[in-house]
C-alpha cells in the first residue's frame, strides 16, 4: 500500500481558519507534518490552534497579515524558532473584491494584487533561506480556474491568480537545482464561504458547465496539495494542477 508520510516536515498554510486553507492544514497535519496555520484575526488564529489540537496535529494558529512584509518576516522567524525551518509553504490566503472594470476603484485593484499576489512574493522569499539550507522544499500556491479562463467582474482577481502561475514557473527554474519545487493548484468552484456568496441561480449555471456536475469540496484541493507536498510529487515543478471537475481542461 502506498503511504504518504510528511513526518518531519514543517508546513505553513496561510489563510487557514476556514475553507480550503483549513482543509489543507488538517490534511497535511494528518499526514504527519507539523502545521502552522495563519489567520488575519486573533479569533481565527485561536480557531486554527483548536482544530489542529482536536485532530492531534502538532502546530498552532498564528496571526499574519500577508500584505505586510514585517508581519510575514515576523511569523516566519517565530515558526523557525519554535518548530524549525519551514519545508512546505502553502500560499492559500486570498480575498475577492469583485467589480466591473469600468467601476473598479484603485483600492479594489491594489488590495487584490497586494493580498493575493505580492503576498506570495513575500512569503516565498522569506521561506527560501531555510529551504535552501535544508536542500528541500515545496512551495504550493492556491490560484484559481479564473486565472486561466477569466471571469467578468474579476479582472483584479484573475490577474493576481494568473500572476501566481508566472511567478511560480520562474521561481521553479531559479531553485530547481536546490531540490525545491514550486507549483500551483488551481481550484475550480469549491463549496466554501467564498462561493456561498453566489446566488442559487449562479450556482446552477456554473454547475451545468462542470462535467462532474457539482462543486468541489475543500478536501479535493487539500488532496492535490498533499500529493504535491509529498515525495510522490517530487518530480513535478513549475506546474499548475487544475482541480475543477473538468470545467476547464488546460
Amino acid at each position, binding site marked *: 500500500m502506498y503511504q504518504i508520510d510528511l513526518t518531519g516536515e514543517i508546513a505553513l498554510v496561510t489563510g487557514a481558519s476556514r475553507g480550503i486553507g483549513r482543509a489543507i492544514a488538517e490534511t497535511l497535519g494528518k499526514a504527519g507534518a507539523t502545521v502552522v496555520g495563519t489567520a488575519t484575526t486573533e479569533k481565527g488564529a485561536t480557531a486554527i490552534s483548536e482544530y489542529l489540537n482536536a485532530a492531534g496535529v502538532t502546530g498552532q494558529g498564528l496571526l499574519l497579515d500577508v500584505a505586510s512584509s514585517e508581519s510575514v518576516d515576523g511569523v516566519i522567524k517565530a515558526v523557525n524558532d519554535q518548530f524549525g525551518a519551514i519545508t512546505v509553504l502553502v500560499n492559500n490566503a486570498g480575498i475577492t473584491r469583485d467589480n466591473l472594470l469600468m467601476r473598479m476603484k484603485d483600492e479594489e485593484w491594489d488590495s487584490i494584487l497586494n493580498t493575493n499576489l505580492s503576498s506570495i512574493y513575500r512569503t516565498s522569499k522569506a521561506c527560501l*533561506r531555510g529551504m*535552501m*539550507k535544508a536542500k528541500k522544499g515545496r512551495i504550493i500556491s492556491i490560484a484559481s480556474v479564473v486565472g486561466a479562463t477569466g471571469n467578468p467582474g474579476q479582472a483584479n482577481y484573475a490577474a493576481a491568480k494568473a500572476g501566481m502561475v508566472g511567478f511560480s514557473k520562474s521561481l521553479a527554474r*531559479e*531553485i530547481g*537545482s536546490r531540490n525545491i519545487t514550486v507549483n500551483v493548484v488551481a481550484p475550480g468552484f469549491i463549496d466554501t464561504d467564498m462561493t456561498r456568496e453566489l446566488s442559487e441561480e449562479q450556482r446552477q449555471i456554473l454547475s451545468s458547465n462542470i462535467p462532474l456536475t457539482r462543486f468541489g469540496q475543500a478536501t479535493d484541493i487539500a488532496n492535490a496539495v498533499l500529493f504535491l507536498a509529498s515525495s510522490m510529487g517530487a518530480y513535478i515543478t513549475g506546474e499548475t494542477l487544475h482541480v475543477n471537475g473538468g470545467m476547464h481542461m488546460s
Partner: protein
Amino acid sequence: MSDIESRVKAIIVEQLGVDEADVKNEASFIDDLGADSLDTVELVMALEEEFGIEIPDEEAEKITTVQAAIDYAKAAQAKA
C-alpha cells in the same frame, strides 16, 4: 594565512565544491570557480552564518571574488 582568510576559503570550498588549491585570492566565483548566481547567494548566506553577520543585498552583490569575501569578513569582524 589569517584565521578569517582560512575560514572564508573553507566555506568557499564547501559551498562551491571546488579544490582548495583553486581558491586563489583573485579568483572570481563565477568566472573562475564555476559558480552560478544562486551559488553566490548561498555563499553569502554561509558567510553570514559563519561570522554571525548580516550582509545587506547591495553589499552582497559586490562580493564576487575570494578577496572581496575575505575583505568583507575582516571589515565586519573589525566592527564587531
